């Protein structure tokens, strides 16, 4: 049973990102490198936010405090990734066989967002997953049996959100459209803030709004990337 839980939770959380990775990133070395660099960027941001959280001893029990700093650092590093990618664009073109890699600027945004999100998702869930294998499980005595599945669902939400956020964020800076950047930051605060309710086991109140935000963000990202209803239909129908 625990094993089934492990697999279902890991597939729920990482199935979609894995497929995205396999189909869009894995066949291009430069994209893999960008993704790993983004993952490293997220790691650095998390390290810094943990340092802040660790240093401020009296507030250590208030995760909201650490969360705020974590979000700020993440957005700073997202901006850092933006600057880095824009600066190294020429160099990246040089080392890749795909000389048009930078022709769509949001391609890199997507890849780096996926790296960012995957790393954050992995850090959020990987230890939980390792514990879910057993021998024990949650919800028999204390705690809730929904712990693992809600964690996995939220992780998936965060991974996808990070991907879309990066797309919106990058294009926001490209077009000097700071409303988009604002949306990214505000929705990030909103979703993370909502997840504070998880400890009170109000899962419906956190997961539903989070996925609504995810849907809105996905729509914005889709529009930002130049998609339209027609192109979506086209891409689906011509697949057969």
């Amino acid at each position, binding site marked *: 049973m625990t094993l089934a839980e492990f697999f279902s939770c890991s597939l729920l959380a990482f199935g979609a990102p894995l497929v*995205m990775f396999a*189909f*869009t*990133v894995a*066949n291009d*070395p430069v*994209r*893999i*490198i960008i993704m*790993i*660099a983004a993952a*490293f960027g997220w*790691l650095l941001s*998390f*390290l810094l*936010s*943990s*340092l802040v*959280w660790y240093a401020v001893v009296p507030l250590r029990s208030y*995760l909201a405090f*650490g969360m705020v700093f*974590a979000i700020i650092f*993440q957005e700073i590093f997202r901006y850092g990734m933006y600057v880095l990618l824009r600066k190294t664009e020429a160099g*990246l073109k*040089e*080392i*890749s*066989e*795909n*000389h*048009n890699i930078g*022709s*769509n600027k*949001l*391609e890199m945004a*997507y*890849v780096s967002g996926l790296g960012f999100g995957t790393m954050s998702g*992995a850090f*959020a869930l*990987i*230890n939980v997953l*390792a514990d879910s294998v057993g021998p024990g499980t949650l919800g028999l005595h204390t705690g809730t049996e929904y*712990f693992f599945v809600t964690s996995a669902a*939220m*992780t998936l*939400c*965060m991974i996808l959100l990070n991907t879309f956020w990066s*797309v919106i964020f990058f294009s926001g800076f490209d077009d000097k459209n700071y409303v988009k950047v604002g949306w990214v930051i505000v929705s990030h605060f909103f979703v*993370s803030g909502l*997840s*504070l309710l*998880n*400890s009170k086991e109000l899962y419906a109140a956190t997961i539903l709004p989070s996925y609504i935000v995810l849907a809105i963000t996905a729509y914005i990202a889709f529009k930002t*990337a*130049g*998609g339209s209803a027609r*192109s*979506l239909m086209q891409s689906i129908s*011509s*697949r057969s």
Partner: protein
Amino acid sequence: MSDTGSETEEATEHTALMDGHIAEARPDRVIAERIAKKRKTKPDNQRSYGSVDGVSGAASGSGGSTAPNAAPPPPPPEPQLEELELKYGARHVIKLFVPVTLCMLVVVATISSINFYSVKDVYLAYTPFHEESPYAVTKVWNALANSLILLSVIALMTVLLIVLYKKRCYKIIHGWLILSSLMLLFLFSYLYIEEALRAYNIPMDYITLLFGMWNFGVVGMIVIHWKGPLRLQQAYLIFIAALMALVFIKYLPEWTTWAVLAVISIWDLIAVLTPKGPLRILVETAQERNEPIFPALIYSSTVMYCLAATTTGGTEGGAETRPSSTGAAGRAGAAGAAGEPRARELRPLNPHGSRENETNEAAGAGGDAAGFDSAWRARAQQQRRLRVDTVERAEPPRYTTRIDRPNTAHAAPQPGADDEEKGVKLGLGDFIFYSVLVGKASSYGDWNTTLACFVAILIGLCLTLLLLAILKKALPALPISITFGLIFYFATRCVVKPFADALAAEQVFI
């Protein structure tokens, strides 16, 4: 993706004029492409065929489009050297990422499933201090003393190897290498299998085990020291490195392992970069003699150059601008229970190095292979003049569709010599110590730490390769990666882990 790939390749056989058709032919480019729809179809088409106008003709276009696909491309009749030069970089980095990742994966999987390797009971003879004292200070000096002893053993062995190499005692060196790989392949893998069987509670009789071990070991010896499919050789080298890393993790005291990692990366720096550094001497001597460094010591990822090697044999000539890295010699396993891994480094190819076999091939093929720039051809000619008297191995250029190790096709008198010097190489020592770090990190049961170390090492490797591309000189591969790895290990262990655990327990997502 693979069928799209083939379609793409097919499409590229035609000209770039067929944009519209090509767009039809590759409908299931995925999300990234859909994002790319912003620019409508045009950039999308050009994406893969951009190189058509970049260099020349359909051949280069085909090279450009096939590159992102994993499927082996049907080789263009004339590989473009300009293309090959540009290909250094991203692709090579990935070619190292994959084996490094695999090696770490083996180690981490073993550590987390087989208890034997994380239990401390016996220690190596090289580490006389066992850190059993409760005092931190004692532990520190124990660890330092241990690591210095181990380092001096390694340095001694390196010097010995170089002296032997200088004196051309190839028989002794080869005997030494064969002995150590023999021991690794038989003894250590026997131990490994025994522990694995015990951990999973699988009964097995000695006859089957002996049969399996014998076959495994003999195939390994043949593949590593003589010849065999490149993939198999790579697999064996990865496995050997993983075994060695496991031995280190098992038999080194706790803090000594960390001290050894730190000390060895400093040693690496010294040995490769100082003018009289032993590894530098080794590499330079090998270059002077136009010899490959012992195949048992380096992992080579030369798949992509095999095509060029088979058809022209002379990619060597174009190597000046294509910095490839060669890790010299991660020695695994000396005659003692300890291996003395050494020689972890990357270096660009010797631009003037005309290796015997390549030159022979160049001599054979350079004449009829058209389409090289004149400079390259001149160089090839020169090489031919220099080396025309060596072993007669000229073979007509072959255009295989398989990407394969050329050795398997040619009955090579000197196996490994063909491609050992091309492409990206990394000393097995690098594999070992990367895996030691990640394995050690995973032995505490925190996956975040493992992941952080893994990403940090990969980024370090990336930076090293970047530096290699910039500096184009011999570079040690350990220092940057290990430094990153150590920083992230300790930071994650002390600072990040509590935070991450608190977040996970409260289900707060940031």
